[in-house]
C-alpha cells in the first residue's frame, strides 16, 4: 500500500497556488484591541451610533468569556493583542465607486485567483462582492440586482443605508454572546456581505463573495447576513484564500442566514485558506460561526462546504428549524493533509413540526492531519414527525493521520425518526486492484475512488464551484471517468 500512499500524498501535496502576496499600500491599525480601537473602527467605517453601542456591548461581553478548548484540536494560545483589527487597501476615496477606482494590483490579484470581478466576466453570470483584508473592494452587478429589488452590498454600506434591516436581523441568529469568536467578531467585524431578497423574488444570478487576507498580522473578521423574504430564493457562493506566511493568521467570521416563509437559501463555500507548510508552520486559523434560522414555514437552507485549506478549521454551519415543514441540509467535504486539523460538522435543531434534516459529511485525512466530525441533532418536544438522516464517512490515507466522529443525538419527541451512520475506512486494495485491472493507472484509480467518495457532496455544489472543488482536491474527473 505504501506506493499508493505516496501517490495519494503527491496528489494531495500540491503547493498552495493562491499563496502570493499583493504589494499594495494599506491603511492598517496598529496591533491591539481595546474600546478605543473599536470606537476608531466604528468611526472609520462611518457607522451610526447604534453600531458602536452594539460593538462595545459585544466587546465587554467577550472580555468575560474564556477561550474555548473543547474541540479535538491543538491550538497554540492566541494573543488577541498581537492582531491588527483593521486593514484596508489604500484608495483615493473612502469607498471605491466603480472598478476604475480599484487598485489595479488588487484586480490583478483577483485575476490570479480567477474571480470574475471585471466587467468582461459578465457572461459568467455571477455577482461578486470581493472582500480584501477587511474591506469590501467591489461589488459587481449591483445595479442589475437592484432592478429586481435584491440588495447585495458590503455590510458596512448596509449599516449606513438600511439600518432598519440591520437592527432587525443582525445578531438575531447568532446572538452577540453566543460564543467566544462570535462575540469577538461582533465587536470588531470590519466588513462582509449583506444580501436581502425581497418577497417572491428568485435571485436572477448566483451571488458570490471572495475573501482574501493579504496584509500580515491582521485578523479577518467578516460578517455575512443574508435575509430571504417570503417565497424568495438565492444561491450564494463563498470562496477564500490567503498568502503564504510563516505566522498564523486568525479568521473569525460570522455568517447569519434567515429564511422566512417558503424561502430558500443555498449557501456554498469553498474554503482554501493557506494551510501552513508541511511542518505545520503558518496557516490560517479558521474559527467560523455559521448559522441559519429557518424561521418561516416550508423554508429551506442548504449548506455545502468544501474545506481544503486552513491550518485549523473549527466550524459548524447549523440550521435552526423553527418553521413547520422546514428543511435543513448539510453537505461537507473536509480534506486535511500534513499537520492540518479540522473539527467541523453541523447542528440541526428541530423545533417545528415535520422538519427534516440531512447531513452528509465526508472527511479525508492524509499526512499527519486530524479530521473530526462533530455534529448535533436535537429534536425538541414540539418537533412532531421530525426526520433526520446523517451519514459521515471518513477516509484515511496513510497511517499517521486521525479521523474522529463525535455525533450527538438528543431526542425528546417519540414520533421523530433519526438515523445516523458512520464509517471509517481506507481506500481498499480490492477497489484499487479492480480499477487497475480495468486498465487505470494507480493514480487515476485513487483519483476516481476519492472523487466517488466525495461525489454525493460535489453534486450539491453549483457548477463553477464543483469544478474548482475537484481541482482543489488535486484530482481531475476527466482522468478518472475516461
Amino acid at each position, binding site marked *: *500500500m505504501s506506493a499508493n500512499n505516496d501517490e495519494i500524498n503527491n496528489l494531495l501535496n500540491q503547493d498552495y497556488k493562491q499563496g502570493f502576496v499583493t504589494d499594495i499600500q494599506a491603511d492598517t491599525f496598529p496591533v491591539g484591541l481595546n474600546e478605543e480601537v473599536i470606537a476608531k473602527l466604528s468611526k472609520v467605517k462611518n457607522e451610526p451610533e447604534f453600531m458602536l453601542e452594539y460593538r462595545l456591548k459585544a466587546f465587554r461581553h467577550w472580555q468575560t468569556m474564556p477561550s474555548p478548548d473543547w474541540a479535538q484540536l491543538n491550538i497554540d494560545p492566541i494573543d488577541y493583542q498581537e492582531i491588527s483589527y483593521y486593514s484596508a487597501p489604500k484608495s483615493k476615496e473612502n469607498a471605491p465607486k466603480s472598478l476604475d477606482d480599484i487598485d489595479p494590483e488588487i484586480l490583478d490579484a483577483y485575476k490570479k485567483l480567477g474571480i470574475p470581478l471585471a466587467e468582461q466576466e459578465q457572461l459568467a453570470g455571477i455577482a461578486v462582492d470581493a472582500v480584501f483584508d477587511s474591506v469590501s473592494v467591489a461589488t459587481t452587478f449591483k445595479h442589475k440586482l437592484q432592478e429586481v429589488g435584491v440588495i447585495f452590498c458590503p455590510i458596512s454600506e448596509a449599516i449606513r443605508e438600511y439600518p432598519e434591516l440591520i437592527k432587525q436581523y443582525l445578531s438575531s441568529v447568532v446572538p452577540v454572546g453566543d460564543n467566544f469568536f462570535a462575540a469577538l467578531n461582533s465587536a470588531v467585524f470590519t466588513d462582509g456581505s449583506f444580501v436581502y431578497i425581497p418577497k417572491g423574488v428568485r435571485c436572477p444570478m448566483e451571488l458570490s463573495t471572495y475573501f482574501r487576507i493579504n496584509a500580515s498580522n491582521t485578523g479577518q473578521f467578516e460578517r455575512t447576513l443574508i435575509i430571504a423574504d417570503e417565497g424568495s430564493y438565492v444561491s450564494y457562493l463563498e470562496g477564500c484564500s490567503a498568502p503564504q506566511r510563516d505566522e498564523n493568521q486568525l479568521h473569525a467570521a460570522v455568517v447569519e442566514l434567515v429564511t422566512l416563509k417558503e424561502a430558500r437559501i443555498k449557501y456554498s463555500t469553498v474554503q482554501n485558506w493557506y494551510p501552513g507548510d508541511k511542518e505545520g508552520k503558518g496557516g490560517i486559523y479558521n474559527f467560523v460561526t455559521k448559522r441559519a434560522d429557518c424561521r418561516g414555514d416550508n423554508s429551506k437552507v442548504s449548506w455545502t462546504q468544501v474545506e481544503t485549506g486552513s491550518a485549523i478549521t473549527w466550524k459548524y454551519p447549523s440550521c435552526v428549524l423553527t418553521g413547520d415543514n422546514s428543511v435543513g441540509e448539510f453537505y461537507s467535504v473536509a480534506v486535511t493533509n500534513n499537520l492540518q486539523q479540522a473539527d467541523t460538522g453541523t447542528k440541526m435543531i428541530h423545533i417545528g413540526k415535520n422538519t427534516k434534516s440531512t447531513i452528509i459529511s465526508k472527511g479525508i485525512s492524509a499526512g499527519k492531519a486530524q479530521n473530526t466530525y462533530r455534529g448535533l441533532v436535537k429534536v425538541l418536544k414540539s418537533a412532531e414527525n421530525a426526520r433526520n438522516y446523517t451519514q459521515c464517512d471518513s477516509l484515511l490515507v496513510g497511517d499517521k493521520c486521525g479521523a*474522529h466522529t463525535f455525533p450527538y443525538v438528543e431526542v425528546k419527541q417519540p414520533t421523530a425518526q433519526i438515523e445516523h451512520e*458512520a464509517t471509517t*475506512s*481506507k481506500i481498499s486494495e480490492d477497489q484499487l486492484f479492480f480499477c487497475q485491472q480495468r486498465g487505470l493507472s494507480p493514480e487515476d484509480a485513487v483519483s476516481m475512488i476519492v472523487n466517488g467518495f466525495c461525489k454525493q457532496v460535489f453534486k450539491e455544489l453549483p457548477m463553477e464551484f464543483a469544478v474548482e472543488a475537484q481541482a482543489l482536491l488535486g484530482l481531475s474527473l476527466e482522468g478518472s471517468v475516461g
Partner: protein
Amino acid sequence: MKTDISWLNTLRQNALTQFEQTRFPSQRLEDWRYTNLSAIEKKQFAFANQVETFDDTHKNHLADFMLNDCYHAIFVDGFFDALLSTLPENITVCSINEAAEHHETVLAPVFNQAIESPHGFTHFTNVHFSDGIFVCINEHSQLDKPLQILHFATQQAMSATRHVVILEENACATLIETFIGVETQTYLTSSVLEIFLNDHANLTLYKVQQDSDKAYHFGGTYVKQADNAHFTHHNFALGGLLARSEIMSHLETGAQCELNGLYLGENRQHLDNLTRIVHAKPDAVSREYYKGILNHRARGVFQGRIVVAKDAQCTDSQMNNRNLLLSSDAEIDTKPQLEIYADDVKCTHGVTVGQLDEKSIFYLQSRGIDEDHAKHILTFAFANEMVDKITVPSLHDCVFTQLLARFPQGAER
C-alpha cells in the same frame, strides 16, 4: 471496614484526597453532560451498617433473584455474607478484604490498574468500599458453574463494593452481577469491578441492574484484555431512579470484545450507559450493540466511544445503538463516537431513534391482533433480541420474566 493493610490504606488515603477535589462528577465533564448527580449530594446518605438478621420478606426477595444453577457471592448492603454465599472450592474466590491479607502478592500489583480514566465515583468507591469479591482462576482452568455476585440493599444508606477478577492464560469463566434492593427504599450503591484477562482467557459477564425505583446506582466495569483474550458483556439496566453504568475495555493484539446492552426506562428513571473500547494493538475485534426503550418521563443516555490507537492496524469495530421512544415525555441522548488514529481499520457505527414500524403493526392488525397488543408484541420483540443472547438458563428466565412484567402482552408464557 477492615483497613489494617497498609498498601490498601495508602490507596484509600490517596483516593480520599482525590475525591475531596473532584467530588461526584459534575455535568461540566463531557462524559457526564447528560446526568445530574446533585440529588445524590442532597440526600446525604449515611453509610450502611452490617445487618445481623433478615426478615422473611427480605429473604424471599433475595431468593427470587438467586439463580439455582450458579455459585453465589452475596453482599448485603455492601457486606459479604458468608452464610448465604456458596463459593466454588477448587478456585481462588474470597472476599476482597480477605484477599488483601492472604493474596496480597497477586492483588496489590493489579489493584486500580484497569481504571484508565478515574473520576469522582471510582475515587468514592475506592475510599468507602466495605467489601467485594476476589476471583483468580488459574491457567487452563475454568469455573464449572457461573458465579453470581448478588448485591442486595436493605437500608436507606449508601454502600460501596470493589471487586477484582483475574483470569490467567486460557482460563474461562462466567460471572453474573445482580443488583437488587428492597422495593421503594432510597439508597445508593456504588460498585467497581476490575477485570484482568490474560492471553486467551475467556470471560462472559452479565450485569442485571434491578435496583429499587428510588435507588441511585453506579456500576463501573474496567477490563484489561491481553492478547487474544475474549470478553463478552451483557448489560441489563432495568431498575433504579438514576443509574449509571460504565464499561471500559482495553484491547491488546487479537483480543475480542463484545458489549451488549438493554436499557428499559419508565416513569422518571434516568439510565445512563457509557462504554469505551480502546483498541491499543492490532487485529482486535469489537462489537457493540445497545438497545433502549424509554417510556413515560424516562430518559436514556448512551455514550459509546471506540478509540483506535496509532498502532492498532486491522482493527475491526462496529457499534450500534437503537432506541425506541414510547412517550412524548421520554428523552434519549446518544453519542456514539469514533476516535481513530490508524488507517487500516474497519470501523462503523450506527444510531437510530424512532418508533415501531407502522407496517409491522398493520401486518399484525390484519391478522386480527388489536393495535395495543401488536405494539406490545413488537416492543417486546425489540427488547427480547438482547435477552435471547443470555445462555445461562436460570438467568434467561429471570430477565425474561422482568421483561414480560413490563410488556405483559408481549409474548406467550
